């Protein structure tokens, strides 16, 4: 046997030994991060910057240079996480709620001072919306959910603020030809409409209102007009009249399924199962998600993040897949995604705080949310039972 062949054989054997074992070096106790109670260690480390007296506003504002949307989403995912943390850890509820209030006040101050377009991408800053007065459901829905979850934890502050915003959201969605309101001029996003519906569900619990009819009609219309025929998955973007502009996308779908879990759980679970089939991947013990189903490929954008060649893994879809997996009790996939996070997202620990170098404050906020979500949705479901 020649030395070349011997070397090749040794390399093949070494690969067979090493590559399937690699994930073992990155596996953490995913069960702790998956648990529905207590505060997982990873969450405690991720939330640390938001609990400092100066808060995490500076870090969130820094994302504004990369994406105006990320600024708002970083704030909202952190606020939603803080509400869940307050429910998980009542002993420290005061500090979680103080941090949540700081974020909520600062976000609303920015919206009041600069207008809602402050949080929109450039193309949303100048074009005219179809419906007057102009508003964005992206901004309204996310802020409403912040306000709603805040009140779900503890009833204080002005209850009329949420009621008024929920009324605006419900009116604008009801007016739409496909029961949807614009996030951008003549552009509706399933993500934003699903988040808005979940905010209305929370408002129903804390205000005693009833948006059940709007929710049912939205689901009906979505099943008829907003579902991709090939995959059965909800599309991500459509015009105000309901013309599909972009098919199913992982960076939308996982969150849509999560948000709809308090609106129509069977439909949400079906969307998760379909998304798992079409978008979830696992290689050598590492879990990740692609952005598009094979049958409806799109192009990389700010939502998908860069696509990893060959594997087609999307940072945006993979991060939000954690949210979906946690919501629907998919512990095995959740664990594999967490393993990939430690392998490929470059965690950096400084003192008690953790962040991921490959991510940004918005991505870290999504990861924090994925590790703590659960109690708020449980409370909404419990209290909405007839």
């Amino acid at each position, binding site marked *: *046997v*020649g*030395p070349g062949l*011997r*070397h090749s054989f*040794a*390399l093949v*054997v*070494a*690969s067979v*030994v*090493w*590559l399937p074992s*690699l994930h073992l070096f990155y596996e953490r106790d995913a069960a702790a991060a998956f648990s529905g109670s207590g505060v997982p260690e990873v969450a405690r480390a991720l939330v640390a910057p938001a609990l400092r007296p100066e808060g995490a506003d500076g870090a969130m504002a820094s*994302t504004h*240079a*990369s*994406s105006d949307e990320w600024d708002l989403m970083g704030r909202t995912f952190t606020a939603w996480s803080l509400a869940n943390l307050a429910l998980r850890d009542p002993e420290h509820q005061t500090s979680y709620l103080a941090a949540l209030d700081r974020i909520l006040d600062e976000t609303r101050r920015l919206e009041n001072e600069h207008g809602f377009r402050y949080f929109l991408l450039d193309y949303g800053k100048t074009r005219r919306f179809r419906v007057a007065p102009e508003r964005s459901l992206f901004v309204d829905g996310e802020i409403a959910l912040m306000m709603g979850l805040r009140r779900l934890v503890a009833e204080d502050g002005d209850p009329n603020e949420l009621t008024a915003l929920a009324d605006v959201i419900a009116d604008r969605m009801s007016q739409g030809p496909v029961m949807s309101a614009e996030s951008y001029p003549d552009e509706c996003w399933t993500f934003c409409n699903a988040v808005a519906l979940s905010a209305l569900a929370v408002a129903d619990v804390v205000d005693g209102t009833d948006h059940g009819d709007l929710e049912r009609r939205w689901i009906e219309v979505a099943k008829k007009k907003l579902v991709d025929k090939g995959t059965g998955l909800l599309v991500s973007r459509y015009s105000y009249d309901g013309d599909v502009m972009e098919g199913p996308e992982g960076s939308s779908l996982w969150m849509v399924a999560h948000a709809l879990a308090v609106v129509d759980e069977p439909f949400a679970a079906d969307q998760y199962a379909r998304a798992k089939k079409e978008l979830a991947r696992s290689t050598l013990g590492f879990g990740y998600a692609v952005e598009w189903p094979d049958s409806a490929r799109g192009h990389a954008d*700010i939502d998908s*993040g*860069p696509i990893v060649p060959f594997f087609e893994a999307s*940072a945006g879809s993979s991060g939000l897949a954690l949210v979906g997996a946690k919501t629907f009790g998919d512990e095995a996939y959740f664990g594999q995604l967490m393993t990939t996070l430690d*392998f*490929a*997202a*470059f965690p*950096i620990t400084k003192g008690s705080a953790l962040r991921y*170098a*490959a*991510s*940004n404050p918005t*991505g870290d906020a999504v990861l924090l949310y994925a590790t703590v979500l659960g109690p708020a949705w449980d409370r909404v479901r419990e209290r909405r039972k007839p």
Partner: protein
Amino acid sequence: MRPLVRFAVVTLMSFAVLHVLGFREDAGFLSGTHVGTLLGGVAYVLSYFVAVVAAPVAMIAAALLWVGGRSRRAPVRDEGRRPVSEGQRGGGLAVAPRQAG
């Protein structure tokens, strides 16, 4: 065997140098975030994946070749109870000479 070990050592050292120099912070380009230098971030990420995926494979392969080489030479020492001659060292295809009688 030596080229494999050399490859592993060089890639591990390259990664260690980039890590110590703080280029891990620049990996934000993976999420489309503008942090640090793109070149430093790309170099860090590539060196990291080579260090954790390819370098261990090279080291294991080198270890296998070393073990294989030793086992092929072992009968000479056992049968002859004498040191392996220079001519037999390192020649993977060399057949151990049998003792006469």
